[in-house]
């Protein structure tokens, strides 16, 4: 075994031992502990658990890469995945905590006085959460497979086994305390390499400041800022200017950001975390703490993205563009390059047969003419995967093996913590909303707890299966989960609190309309149920690629939410107002006094 493998096994093994230790200590003895950790979690602790619950494999592994190659356009993820907490803290969390029940569909069922509304909410929740959990499973499989030398399938089985231990034994209680441990692991794993790299490139150890500092590699001042340097390096090779490149169009960025924000606020596995704090006031502060812990990673990510991109470009383009000696010879490529080639995340193709690496934007017509003059025959870095920006970052910066091992443990912590939260949201929707709420209302608490554990097992097996046999759409799943949550759950919750007049007819037709419109637009672009070849774009009728004002399918959740709001308000205006006791319920939810511990009754 290489030293790196020994480090990786030790650090990952240690973190897993901690998670299992917590699981044994934090077993759940009641449904209240299983669904809401007994309702006594400190707001700061809950904030930390929420941060781990929220930051998934996508945040940890993929986001910095999306920023690295998207530049300014990557800002939609930064703003979208944090701004949603403002909506959550101001518009939903305190009121749902006051309502004091175990699940999100339960609020919708009670507020809209109909089991049918509750069932529609369960369906929307399961659609959003299952699509989301697939992304976590693939993340776990990839991380295990790449670093621990075991197969992708075995990786998923190992990950599932760990989650099973603490999620089945401890429910929300076990998940809460493991998530706190997982947050600590993932935040160290993310920030330590970032600090080293920022220090190397700018002399400033704080990445958030380093990104805005002078570019001074190894202490030699260059007279220009890091971002100016990056802009220059990328534009010299025909790429779009880093600090100004947009994603699609300004309108698309606007709508995309909005979809991610509304989706964040509407994701049930995040909302239920706020049912675990003792008081309404705690729910408000806890959302703030969650965002503090999230912001530590989210404000570091743009520095990681920009600096890793600069490092990558500088590794390959070692001198002025156009001179023969300026391109790295393939035979002299560094070790990390070779290692990542074997994984397929990096791929080189010597198109002009000169043995040198030319990495430039060959889709830029203006630059292509210049490139031809240099004797270049196309971009030779045919694959540079987004994920490599975080995964290979410590190696590119020549950091010690233990840092690389820590990054592996961090990626696993991010994926496991999010998977556990999602699995709890799914299993409580089944055992509490469907079984206890609709089919067997007289079930005893003990039996419900047993049912909760059984549905957890079912959810884990399903997630594992989908992780091993990912449907064709796996790559885009996480973004789609946001669209689904944004277009169905968020509007129903918000209207339930802020529009006293909203009735069941309005809410149900709104949810159905919102999710349908969103799914239709996604299916139209990506195939019905994502089956390739069933796309039904109709360019002759003005429905070509991104036909709706240039809005991409991943960004469409905000439009779905808008449709939901409009349909709900229109239908409720035309139908009878909700009964008196529901209007009292809304009045009651708006005032903090009288919030007990969350209950199932």
């Amino acid at each position, binding site marked *: 075994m290489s030293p790196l493998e020994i480090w990786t096994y030790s650090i990952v093994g240690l973190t897993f031992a901690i998670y299992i230790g917590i699981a044994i200590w934090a077993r759940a003895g009641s449904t209240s502990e299983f669904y809401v950790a007994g309702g006594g979690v400190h707001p700061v602790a809950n904030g930390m658990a929420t941060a781990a619950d929220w930051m998934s494999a996508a945040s940890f592994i993929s986001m910095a890469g999306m*920023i690295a190659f998207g530049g*300014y356009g*990557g*800002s939609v993820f*930064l*703003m979208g995945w*944090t*701004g949603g*907490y*403002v909506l959550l*803290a*101001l*518009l939903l969390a*305190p009121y749902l905590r006051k309502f004091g029940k175990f699940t999100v569909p339960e609020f919708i069922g009670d507020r809209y006085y109909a089991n049918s509304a509750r069932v529609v909410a369960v369906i929307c929740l399961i659609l959003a959460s299952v699509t989301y959990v697939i992304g976590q499973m693939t993340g776990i499989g990839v991380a295990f497979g790449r670093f621990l030398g075991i197969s992708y399938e075995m990786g998923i089985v190992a990950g599932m086994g760990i989650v099973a231990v603490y999620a089945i034994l401890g429910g929300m209680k076990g998940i809460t305390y493991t998530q706190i441990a997982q947050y600590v692991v993932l935040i160290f794993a993310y920030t330590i390499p970032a600090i080293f790299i920022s220090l190397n490139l700018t002399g400033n150890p704080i990445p*958030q*400041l380093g*990104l*805005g*500092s*002078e570019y001074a590699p190894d202490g030699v001042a260059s007279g220009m*800022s*890091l*971002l*100016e340097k990056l802009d220059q390096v990328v534009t010299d090779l025909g790429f779009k200017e880093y*600090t*100004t490149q947009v994603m699609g169009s*300004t309108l698309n*960025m*606007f709508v995309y*950001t*909005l979809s991610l924000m509304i989706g964040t606020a509407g994701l049930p596995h995040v909302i239920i975390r706020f049912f675990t704090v003792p*008081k*309404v*006031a705690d729910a*408000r*502060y806890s*959302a*703030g703490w969650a*965002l*503090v812990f999230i*912001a530590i990673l*989210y*404000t570091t990510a*743009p520095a990681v993205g920009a600096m890793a991109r600069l490092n990558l470009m500088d590794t390959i383009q070692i001198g002025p563009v156009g001179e023969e000696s300026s391109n790295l010879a393939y035979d002299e490529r560094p070790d990390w390059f070779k290692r990542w080639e074997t994984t397929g995340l990096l791929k080189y193709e010597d198109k002009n047969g000169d043995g040198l690496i030319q990495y430039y934007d060959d889709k830029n017509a203006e630059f292509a003419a210049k490139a031809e003059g240099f004797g270049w025959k196309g971009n030779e870095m045919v694959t540079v995967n987004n994920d490599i920006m975080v995964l290979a970052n410590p190696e590119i910066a020549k950091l010690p093996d233990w840092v690389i091992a820590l990054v592996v443990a961090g990626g696993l912590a991010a994926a496991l913590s999010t998977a556990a939260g999602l699995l709890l949201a799914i299993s409580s929707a089944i055992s509490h909303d469907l079984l206890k709420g609709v089919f067997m209302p007289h079930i005893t608490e003990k039996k419900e707890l047993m049912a909760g554990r059984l549905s957890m097992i079912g959810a884990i097996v399903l997630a594992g299966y989908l992780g091993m046999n990912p449907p064709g759409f796996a790559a885009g799943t996480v973004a789609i989960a946001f669209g689904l949550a944004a277009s169905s759950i968020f509007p129903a919750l918000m209207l339930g609190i802020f529009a006293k007049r909203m009735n069941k007819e309005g809410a149900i037709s709104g949810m159905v309309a919102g999710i349908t419109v969103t799914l239709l637009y996604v299916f139209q672009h990506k195939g019905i149920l994502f089956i390739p070849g069933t796309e039904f774009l109709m360019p002759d009728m003005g429905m070509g690629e991104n036909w709706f004002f240039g809005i991409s399918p991943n960004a469409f959740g905000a439009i779905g939410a808008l449709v939901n709001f409009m349909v709900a308000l229109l239908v409720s205006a035309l139908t009878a107002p909700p009964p008196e006791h529901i209007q009292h319920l809304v*009045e009651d939810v*708006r*005032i*903090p*006094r*009288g*919030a007990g511990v969350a209950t199932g009754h």
Partner: protein
Amino acid sequence: MTPDKRADYWKANLRYLTVLLIVWFVVSYGFGVLLVEPLNAIHLGGYPLGFWFAQQGSIYVFVALIFVYAALMNRLDQQFDVGEE
């Protein structure tokens, strides 16, 4: 609690929400997206200002907004005597 006081409490809450959500909108969608180009002419250290709002500033403001709201609502709960024991 009288219905009138209830309504006053809710109105005060909605006022806070409106102001804070305007700030939320301005720093992200305003400074970070719609006005990013003109703001980029101004620099904050090595950061073009619009770019800074999109990738750093808006996030800091979001955090502040939530704590400001929590503090304002705590005061309001006390004023109207609707807080928890």
